[in-house]
């Protein structure tokens, strides 16, 4: 099929997905995955084009993650979220790591599956909090702060996973040096960078958009040539320019990122339609799913919030997403890959439902726990 015809069908399905999601007042991500799955059942799409879309979406996502890395903004949040964020990492990464080691017996796959299991989806959760006007909730700063913390850890974990091999120490040294240099450039060169952006903006908005696309793609290509993850290049461009004219980046590149991320989820659905899931992966995937719910719901135990609020925050953090999808492509064992893909897709759907209905679920569970403790007190009396 001609690419132009394919894209007209793809965008038609995506429009349907957006309308349906808006009608149900839920995250668009689910609609995009379903639309991609439907498309995959009916048509084929060029492999190379899918890879380009995936890679570009990831680069733009990492560029925006880099932009969030403002030390000034992060400092006040970090003191209040440290306990929750560290619990989140220890609990979720360890469970994923242990499950990965049990399934594969390989250290590489254990780290990889730990990294798939650990991070919640910022894209799904932030959108839901916005749709449901839940940024006013008392737990919102801790949720958002923890999501940012997860992003930081994921940058390092992806660096480790991609660098895994004979030259791992050298590659990690390059990654850490590059991150440090980007932070130093952000602090020391800020007035010059502001001046540079103003002078580019003096021409047209397009000049700025294209200049930054050039920077993102060229640094990413350089890192890819060095056999280090390309996304690190995009991330570092974001770090260098973080805290400088954030709103204008949102205006000039935000829409492009949103479109590519929508296509990213669409083609994840498309890929799922071409995978034959055997019954044997259903049990391990379901066990992982239950563990992933239990571990995220427990994360806020040390937050100092009331039990009902802790549970509401925990249910909100259940859905995994972009990082889990991205990393599941690195699994080399077919059966394990099937298990993890099924786990990720079940988690995205069930997790989004849970995040969306977190208040109701928290009330139910809180009531149940109160009744249980009341019964226990009654029995002991």
């Amino acid at each position: 099929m001609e690419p132009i015809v394919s894209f007209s069908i793809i965008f038609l399905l995506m429009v349907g997905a957006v309308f349906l999601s808006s009608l149900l007042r839920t995250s668009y991500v689910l609609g995009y995955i379903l639309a991609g799955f439907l498309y995959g059942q009916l048509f084929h799409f060029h492999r190379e084009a899918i890879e380009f879309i995936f890679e570009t979406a990831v680069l733009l996502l990492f560029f925006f993650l880099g932009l969030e890395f403002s030390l000034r903004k992060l400092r006040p949040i970090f003191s209040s979220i440290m306990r929750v964020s560290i619990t989140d990492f220890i609990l979720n990464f360890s469970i994923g790591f242990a499950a990965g080691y049990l399934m594969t017996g390989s250290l590489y796959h254990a780290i990889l599956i730990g990294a798939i299991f650990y991070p919640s989806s910022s894209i799904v959760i932030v959108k839901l909090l916005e749709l449901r006007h839940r940024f006013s909730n008392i737990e919102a700063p801790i949720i958002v702060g923890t999501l940012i913390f997860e992003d930081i850890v994921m940058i390092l974990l992806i660096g480790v996973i991609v660098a895994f091999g004979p030259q791992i120490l050298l590659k990690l040294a390059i990654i850490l040096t590059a991150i440090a240099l980007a932070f130093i450039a952000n602090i020391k060169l800020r007035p010059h960078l502001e001046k540079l952006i103003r002078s580019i903006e003096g021409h047209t908005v397009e000049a700025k958009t294209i200049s930054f696309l050039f920077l993102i793609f060229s640094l990413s290509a350089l890192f890819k040539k060095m056999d280090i993850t390309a996304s690190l290049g995009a991330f570092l461009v974001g770090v260098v320019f973080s805290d400088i004219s954030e709103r204008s980046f949102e205006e000039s590149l935000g829409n492009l990122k949103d479109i590519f991320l929508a296509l990213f989820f669409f083609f994840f659905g498309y890929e799922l339609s071409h995978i034959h899931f055997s019954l044997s992966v259903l049990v391990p995937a379901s066990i992982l799913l239950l563990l992933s719910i239990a571990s995220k719901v427990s994360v806020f135990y040390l937050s100092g919030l009331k039990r009902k609020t802790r549970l509401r925050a925990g249910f909100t953090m259940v859905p995994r997403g972009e990082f889990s999808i991205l990393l599941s492509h690195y699994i080399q064992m077919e059966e394990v890959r099937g298990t993890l893909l099924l786990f990720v897709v079940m988690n995205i759907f069930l997790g989004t439902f849970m995040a969306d209905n977190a208040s109701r679920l928290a009330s139910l569970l809180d009531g149940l726990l109160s009744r249980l403790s009341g019964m226990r007190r009654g029995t002991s009396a």
Partner: protein
Amino acid sequence: MRIESFEIPGVGKRYEFHTKHGDVFVLIERLDGKRELSILKDEEVVATVELSPEEANQLALILAPSFITDFLDKRIDIIFRKVAIDSFEIKEGFFASGKTLRELQLRNKTGASIISIMRNSEIITNPSPDMVLKPGDVVVIIGKKEEVEKAQKYLAKGDL
């Protein structure tokens, strides 16, 4: 009153207010200018109000220190009949972006004046002529209605 604030990437800024009497309310300042005001009780949101940028400005005027409201009360007729006060956001690529107030010569060219500038939630009153306007700044302009409209056009496009 204790105020805690933090930035939500891609969304805006969240302020949490704890009053002396133990009441808690939250203000979400979105990047698109909308405001969301919520009252919390026992860690639960009990009421939320969404305000457009204009409504937020009106509320801010009412909540402003008494000397401003007294002034407005006394001069209400003049304000509404003759004088206009309006806010205006400087965006990328606007004529005024990157220029000092001295370079702009706004009062000479339009008759209206900039009385304050809001930058990153900080309010700068009586800005100095050497102050450079940046994208994202919100300027408060005072003048006759037609002068304020002229000033907005001038700041955006450079022509009158």
